[in-house]
């Protein structure tokens, strides 16, 4: 193994805990053709959700219980960190026929 390679691995290992806490996951939720997928997904408190809007329309991910409200302009994505446990139903305020569920474990 070349020293340069070793150094970059060491660097990566050193920075890893800062970038992603060991237990946290990154979950992608996509909106395309007015469909949210996956329609149901499980996450843990501390996980990061990447919301991806592939449509030319603006959408929102709005929790029915008020826990989050993410606005997604056309063809844009956004991230949010899951904060509270519970089963959260969410929808798009502009197109309330877009619905999905996020199951958040503590």
């Amino acid at each position, binding site marked *: 193994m070349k020293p340069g390679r070793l150094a970059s691995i060491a660097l990566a290992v050193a920075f890893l805990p800062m970038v992603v806490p060991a237990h946290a996951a990154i979950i992608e939720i996509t909106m395309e*053709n*007015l*469909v949210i997928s996956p329609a149901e997904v499980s996450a843990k408190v501390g996980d990061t959700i990447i919301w991806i809007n592939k449509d*030319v*329309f*603006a959408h929102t991910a709005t929790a029915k219980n008020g826990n989050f409200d993410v606005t997604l302009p*056309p063809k844009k994505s956004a991230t949010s960190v899951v904060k509270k446990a519970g089963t959260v139903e969410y929808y*798009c*305020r*502009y*197109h*309330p*026929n*877009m619905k999905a569920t996020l199951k958040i474990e503590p």
Partner: protein
Amino acid sequence: MFIRWSAAVAAAILLSSPALQGASAADKPTDPQIAHIAYTAGVIDINAAKQAQKKAKNKDVKAFAEDMLRDHEAVNKQALALVKKLNVTPEDNDTSKALSKQASDKLAELDKLSDAAFDKAYVANEVAYHKAVNSALETQLIPSASNAELKSLLQTGLKIFQGHQQHAEHVAAELK
């Protein structure tokens, strides 16, 4: 009462227009006609939204009008790109004409109203209008479309319109 009546008329125009009537293949609207009807349906809602932006007082109604403007402009932009790509020239037809006529009558009628009365009538008409267009898309336009890309754009359009109908119903419920 008048609102309910005009919704029925809109539905009747959409569903019983000569261009959409009959079961035989010859009576089915062609793709150029379908493209024209779908585009016209979008333009009508854009014009209604522009009127609402000027006249509406309630902030939810104003926001709703802005959403309609943004979405329908986006759909129509896609529709224009598609007809260009397919080399199809949208063809005017009786359904498009009837829709436009009915819409301009509605604009004139709503123009006489102001404040809360306008807000209520605009949102009620949005519910009725989206319902009528959804029904036409589902039962006539989508089944008649022969080009796969046009069909898929209409299917996206249907989901958008269904979303708008529910959104309009929420706003209407809050105005009461």
